[in-house]
C-alpha cells in the first residue's frame, strides 16, 4: 500500500468526494418533475387514450365500422358490432376498446381509411375496476369532445394520420369528378 493510498483511507477522501456530489445536487436546479403535482405538457402526437372522431357535419362518429382497426390490432382489444340501418346504411352499434389491453402502437389509427380513430394525448386514467376501462362508443366519442376539441383534433389527423388513403378520403382534391350515369 502506498502512502497516498493510506492517506486516502485515513481521511475518507472518497466519501467526502461522494458527499460533495450530493451537496452539489442540493443546490443545482432539479431535473425530475413532481408528478402528479407538477404536470408535463405532452408532445404533439403522443399516444394516449383512444377517441372516436366526431364528424363536424353530422355530429356522429365518422367510423363506418369497416373493422380494419380491429383486424390490425396486435392485442385484439377492439370489438366492433355493426348492423343495417333503416336506409340500408351500415350502422356501428357498438365500438368498444379494452383499453387495459392496448399497447398504444397506433396501428389502428394507421389502418383507418377514414381517419375516424385517434389516440389522444390524455394519458392519465385510473380506476378501481377493469370494467371502467372497457370504453364504449359513447365514451370514445366523449373523449374526442374532451381531449381533441377545437383545431386540435384536425391538426392531429393532418399531422399524424399516415398513410393517407386518398382514394378513401371523402373528397378527391386533384381533379373534379365527372358524372356517371348508370
Amino acid at each position, binding site marked *: 500500500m502506498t502512502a497516498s493510498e493510506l492517506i486516502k483511507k485515513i481521511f475518507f477522501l472518497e466519501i467526502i468526494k461522494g458527499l460533495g456530489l450530493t451537496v452539489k445536487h442540493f443546490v443545482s436546479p432539479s431535473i425530475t418533475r413532481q408528478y402528479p403535482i407538477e404536470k408535463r405538457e405532452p408532445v404533439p402526437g403522443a399516444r394516449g387514450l383512444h377517441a372516436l372522431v366526431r364528424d363536424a357535419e353530422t355530429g356522429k362518429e365518422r367510423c*363506418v*365500422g*369497416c*373493422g*380494419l382497426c*380491429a*383486424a390490425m390490432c396486435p392485442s385484439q382489444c377492439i370489438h366492433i358490432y*355493426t*348492423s*343495417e340501418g333503416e336506409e*340500408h*346504411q*351500415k*350502422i356501428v352499434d357498438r365500438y368498444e376498446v379494452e383499453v387495459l389491453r392496448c399497447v398504444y402502437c397506433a396501428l389502428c389509427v394507421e389502418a383507418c*381509411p*377514414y381517419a375516424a380513430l385517434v389516440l389522444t394525448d390524455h394519458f392519465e386514467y385510473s380506476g378501481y375496476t377493469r370494467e371502467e376501462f372497457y370504453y364504449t362508443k359513447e365514451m370514445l366519442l366523449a373523449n374526442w369532445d374532451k381531449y381533441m376539441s377545437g383545431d386540435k383534433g384536425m391538426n392531429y389527423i393532418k399531422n399524424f394520420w399516415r398513410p393517407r388513403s386518398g*382514394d*378513401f378520403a371523402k373528397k*378527391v382534391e*386533384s*381533379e373534379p*369528378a*365527372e*358524372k*356517371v*350515369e*348508370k
Partner: protein
Amino acid sequence: MVQLTINGKKVSTKKGNTILEAALDNNIKIPHLCHDKRLMPYGGCRLCIVEIEGRKKPEASCATFATDGLSVWTDTPKVIKIRQTVLELILVHHPLDCPVCDKAGECDIQDLVYQYGSPRTRFVAEKNHALPDTRGPLVELTSSRCVLCGKCVRLCAEHQGKGALGLIGRGFPTVVQPAFGEALECDFCGQCIDVCPTGALMNKSLKFKARPWFLEEKDSICSFCGCGCTLTLGLTDGKIQRSRGMQDRGVNRGNLCGRGRFGFDYIYSENRLRSPMINKGGELVTVTWDEALNYISDRMKSIINAHGPSSIGAIGSPRCTNEENYCFQKFMRNVVGSNNIDSSASFGYGLVEKAWHMAFGLSGHRIDLKYPTGKEVILAIESDLTVTHPVFGLNILQAQREGSELIVADSRETKLTRHSTRWARIKQGTGVVFLNGIMRIMMDRGLIDNQIVLHMKDVSAFEETLKEYTPSKVSEITGLSRDELVTITETLVHAKTRMLTLSIGVSENSKGLDTVLAATNLIHLLGESPDALQIPAEYANTFGLYQMGVRPDAGPAYQWTGVEGKNIFEMLYEPYSLKALYIMGADPLVNFPDKSEIITTLKSLYLLIVQDIALTETAKFAHVILPASSWAEKEGTYTNAEGVSQMLPRLIEPAGQSLPDWKILKNLARTMGEDMAVHDTTDIVREIDSLRVKYYDSFPMTRIFNPVHYVPGEEPDTEYPVNMVLRDVLQHAGSMSTRSKTLNLISSEALLEINRTDADRFGISHNGYVKVISRRGTVYLKAAVSDSVPDGNVYVPTHFPHSAVSTLTHQSGKGRITTEAVRIETA
C-alpha cells in the same frame, strides 16, 4: 389427353379443356373473373390473357382450347401489363366502398388489384353510387359494384336451370337484374352469391354482421335432405353467421341449395328447448335434468312391470346422428327390452329397402349422386328431384344438358319437366300403370332382355299380371297417348345406359311401395343392374338411421333380432296398443298423415317422452320434454343417401341445458340402473364398427318379379271432387326448416296450388284463403293459382306446423298411394 407446355412446364389435360382449365388443374394460377368450371367459356373479363408462342395476339386462355404442343406463357411482362390495364379499366367506375362492402376481404377484385399493383387510375370519374336493390328477401343486388362478368346470370341459367337473372341493357350501362327490373323471385339457391367476384350480389342475412376476416370457417354437413352436402360455415363469437359452398368440396362439389345456404338458422329459433320440462296438471313446468330423468325412470319401470316391455314404443329421427340412433335402439332393445322402434323412414326409404329386398334380395340401397352423368336415358317417375334432393337434381339437369334423354313422367309441371326432353304428363298416382304399360309393350314386342329374364322364375306368371295393362287401358288411366307410351318404351329399351329415379317419403303421397316394385320389375325386364334404380333416402341421416337398426324388424347392420316389434303404423295409428312412447327428434303430428288419429293415440298413452331441439306440435302432448342439442352443437356422423358417413364437428355451444341425444339416453339408462357402456362418441363408433364386421356382409343377388296392380288413392266423388297430392317445396325439408327465419321469408305457409280452371270453378282467387275439407278434417290454406298443376288436382306441402295439412290426410299402413279426395270452398 393433350400435352402442352405452360411456363416451360409440361402438363397434360383432358381433351376439350381450355388452356385456363389445363393450367388450373396443374396448379398454375391464371387470374380470371368470368370463368367458372361449371359454365361454358365466356371470355368477357380479359384477365386470363396469356401469350402463346407463334401467335401474334395474346389470347384469352378461358376461351382458347388446349391443343397438343402449345407453348403458353402466363406471366410475361406484356401479359402483366395487359392485366394491369384491364384492372385499371374495371376500377374506373368501381365504387371502392370496400370499408362498407361485406365482400371486402374475400373479394376477387381486391385480391387481383393487390396482386397486380396500384389501383390508382388516370381517369377520375365520379364513382358509381347506385343504391342497392334491397327488395328481395335473401339476396341483395348492388349493381354499382358489378363488373359484369355475367357469372351469376350464366350460372343461374346454365347450371341451375332457372334463368332468374339477366344482363339488362347494353354496353356500359348494362346491369344484372331480374327481368323487367322486378325484385328477385327465384329458387333462392344463392349460388349467384358464391360466384360473384365482387360485392354485387350479397347474402342479405349476413349484411353488416361480420367482416370476412373475422369469420372462422369450418366445414359441416347439411342437416336437411339426403344429399349430405358439405357446408362451409362461418362463425364469429360462437355463432354461425353464414353457410356457403366451396368449389369442389364435399359430395356437392360446392353446390348448395337454399336450405343448406340459408336454413341453418333454425338452431337459433326462439322455439328452442333449453331445459327439461314435465307436464304437471296440464302445464309444462321447467324442471332439472335429475327430476325429469327420475320421473321417466319411475314411470317407465312401473309400465314395464305392469304391462311388459312390449307396451313401450319409440320413434327415432333422421335428423339425429348415427351414434345417437344407435344408442336409441340400444336403449330400447337392451334397457327397455322392446323391439318397438321405428321412424319416418317407414313411409319412404323403408319401402325402398323392402322393395330392394323383395326384388333383388339386397339390403342397403344407396344412390350415387354422380350416377346421372353420361346416362343415355334418365326416367324420373312422379318426382321432382330438384326439389327433394336439389344437388342430385342438379346432376340430373347437367346430364340432360350434356345430352342425356330426360323423360319425366309427372302430373304437374316442375323444374325437372321444364328441363326434360320428354314430359309424359300422366295423371297423379298412376306411376304404376305407366310402368306396367311400358312393361306390357316390352313383353308384347319381345323387347325384353332375354339373357336375364329367361333365367328368372315366374316370368309367365308375371306376364299374366301385365295382361290387363293394354296400351289403350294404360292410356285411359294415365292420360298419356298410346304413341307416346310406345316412344318412351322404345327410347328406354334402345338406350345403352339408363337410370330410373324417383323420390319417396312421408311428405309425398302419390307414390308407394307399388311404384318402387314396378320400377324394380322394369329393371329386370331391361336387364339393367340394380344400380340403375336411384332412389335417394329422404333426409340427412335416413340411410344411417336404417343401418343403425332404428326399425322394428332388424337391429344394427341388418342383423335379425328374433322378434319383430311394432312398426310405426301399429304404434301411432292403433290407440291403446302402447302404454308409453319415446319420440326422439320427430314430429308425427306435422309430418305424418292423419293427425287426429295420432292425437287419439298420444292421448291414450300413460307416458309420452319427446326429446327434441324445439317445442314441436307433438311435444305439446308430452308428459316429459327433454331438450336435445342441435346438429351444430354436437359431434357425430350423418350417412347420406350415397351411404357415405360424414363427420359433424361440434361448432357451437349447446343451447341452454340441452344435451346431445346419446348423452341423454346414457344418463337415462343410468337413472334406470342400467349401463349403456358408452362414455363418448368414439365408444359408440367402435361398437358400431364391431357389429359391422360381424353382420354387415354382402347378400347374394337374386332377381324376383313382384307383380303389382294399380291401387289408386282415395277416389274423388261428388262430395269430395278434387284430388289432393302432397308435394315438398324447395325451401323446406321436413318441418324443422320452418323454424328458420330466413327460409320463412321465402316460404312461410302451405300454399294450395290449384289450376286456374278449378279456381274459377270453386270461386277461388290467387292468394285468397280457402277451406279444404277431406273425410278426416278441415284446414284453411292460402291458394296459389298456378298453371303448372293439372285440373282436378291440388298440390299441398306438409312442412308447416300451423298449416296442419296432416289433419286432412290418411295412411294406408301398407305403403300405398294415399292421395286424398277433398272439397274446396272459399273461406
